[in-house]
């Protein structure tokens, strides 16, 4: 097995809540990410899926140490990101870049495209003005824009073009890992297809490793080699895209998949409509976090949190039903 390029171990992030009593520290906190571990292997695309509020984006921010975890470590090529000082971290971040969700909010409207794309080069003191300009033009062409766009401002571009600019900026430092946090979610389908094609081409050309966060399950299936399914700050299932889409084990994964809208007017879908809401991450339910909404919940689910069970070499899931070994719950 190859060495992982990025490895997260036992990541936790609790955001403390304000106490109702002034000056008193609150004991409550939002358990946004609760013990998440994963490996990212060179050249692969790891998808992260789950409903909003399940901690997908927090995981992305922790993986780049944009926020400090409450517990846990992240290793980038064997180096511990969490123990680095600011300078070391800055150097390490050359290898790990992010593309954010909202193409309208992630570009400073007062800067030109050249300033935006060359900013990482300036921060890392790479090259002189002329060589930076050359690099910006190169990058613009790589992402399918033209070099004369360099002097324009973000408002002159459409959503899809802005996302291309964001991608160019993320690529400026030749990173090894790119984290795409809902990078195509805000785009129209036809534009989305263009940006997805671009991401795939770039991956081949520059041997990039992607962590691809999305709530669109069809996009994730198409883009990703392996998929992490999250629920309420925990990983409930992980496997190759075939494991997840063809042989899902966790009832939550099954419910997610069944919620994908139908693909043609005739298709009749067997739906597992989840009732209720995602429970509060401040006081998560006892036992399995999913038991209140799970159509197959048993008594044990209310009291005991399930462990990750290995289903196959590439496939793990955290559900008591797997241990039972029966197939009653299979839909």
């Amino acid at each position, binding site marked *: 097995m190859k060495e992982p390029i990025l490895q997260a171990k036992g990541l936790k992030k609790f955001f403390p809540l304000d106490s109702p009593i002034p000056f008193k520290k609150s004991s409550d906190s939002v358990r946004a990410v609760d013990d998440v571990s994963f490996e990212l292997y060179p050249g692969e695309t790891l998808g992260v899926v789950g409903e909003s509020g399940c901690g997908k984006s927090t995981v992305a921010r922790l993986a780049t140490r944009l926020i400090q975890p409450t517990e846990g470590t992240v290793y980038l090529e064997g180096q511990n990101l969490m123990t680095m000082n600011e300078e070391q971290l800055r150097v390490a971040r050359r290898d790990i870049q992010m593309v954010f969700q909202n193409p309208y909010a992630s570009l400073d409207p007062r800067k030109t495209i050249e300033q935006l794309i060359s900013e990482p080069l300036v921060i890392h003191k790479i090259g002189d003005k002329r060589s930076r300009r050359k690099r910006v033009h190169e990058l613009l062409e790589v992402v399918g824009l033209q070099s004369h766009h360099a002097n324009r401002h973000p408002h002159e571009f459409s959503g899809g073009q802005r996302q291309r600019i964001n991608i160019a900026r993320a690529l400026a430092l030749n990173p090894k890992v790119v984290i795409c946090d809902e990078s195509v979610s805000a785009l129209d389908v036809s534009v989305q297809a263009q940006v997805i094609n671009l991401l795939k081409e770039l991956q081949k050309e520059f041997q990039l490793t992607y962590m691809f966060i999305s709530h669109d399950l069809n996009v994730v299936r198409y883009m990703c080699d392996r998929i992490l399914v999250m629920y309420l700050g925990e990983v409930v299932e992980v496997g190759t895209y075939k494991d997840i889409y063809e042989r899902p084990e966790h009832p939550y994964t099954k419910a997610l998949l069944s919620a994908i809208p139908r693909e043609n*007017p005739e298709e009749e879908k067997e739906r597992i409509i989840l009732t209720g809401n995602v429970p509060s991450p401040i006081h998560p339910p006892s036992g399995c976090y999913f038991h209140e909404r799970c159509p197959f919940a048993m008594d044990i689910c209310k009291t005991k949190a399930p462990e990750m069970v290995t289903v196959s070499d590439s496939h793990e899931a955290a559900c008591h039903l797997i241990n039972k070994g029966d197939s009653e719950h299979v839909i």
Partner: protein
Amino acid sequence: MGDEHLLEVNNLKVHFRSGKKTVRAVDGISFKLGKKENLGIVGESGSGKSVTATALMRLIPSPPGKIADGEIIFEGENILKYSNRKMRDIRGNEISMIFQDPTTSLNPVYTVGNQLLEAIQTHQQLSKKDAQEKAVEMLELVGIPEARRRLKMYPHEFSGGMRQRVMIAIALSCNPKLLIADEPTTALDVTVQAQILELMKKLQDEIDTSIIMITHDLGVVWELCDNVLVMYAGHMVESGPVQSLHSNPLHPYTWGLLDSQITSETESDELLRTVPGAPPNLMTELPGCPFADRCVYAQDICREKKPEMLEVEENHFVACHFQTEDSRLERRGGDHS
């Protein structure tokens, strides 16, 4: 003829002034909607979907906007001729609307109950107590637990899906004959989207509403709609029953739209088909087909003459010069991207 349809839109044009220029956001839309029928309007951003919806409610901000031409015939009467006063009686009562963003469409400084009661009391002569009861009933109908307590809560205390349910409750509180839903599930998770669509279907059975569903997600159209209208750059390019549009799409733009969807059959190693280019600038009046610049089949005639909507199959209309019996475009299997 007009009597059997709930809504009939004829040659609707909505223009916006921008400086000295005119943006033709909607340029000649016509459709009919029967009772209890669901129509999907699809197209990319800027194609005029939302402007069409807003025009149906007569909520186009004016100036700069203006309904430049056309008729909107609702239950046999042209609502464009109505006075503002009369329109206010219809809006939110007989025609109501759900907007895309549940986080911004509720007023944060009023309780949910307050906003629900406002809708009910504006249009129905009910005592405060009866209105309150009606509000509780509506929240229960849309599946909000502990409705009575929830009435006293503020929008920020609700999740996105719950807020959208509140919006639906408000929109349906006066049993509208027509519900216009402008991307009601776009901002929501798939699981919540499935819940909301299921809810809309259920409620439709209960209160006999016709729905106009505006979306860019064809999956949502397949779920809910009977007919679909494809818009491009303010024009209609194709319309018809969902089955026939799905199995036999006729317009090259519709092909592009269907092709760029990722489905469970899309293999990870195949390149997605896309429609190259960008939509035309709506400030210039186009002499020809609005899609001509991006269409791989475009001929001289496409740039010179606007295609009319032609009925090619039963109820299935398309605006393309090459869709008549003798010059039918065959969908090419291969490399049109």
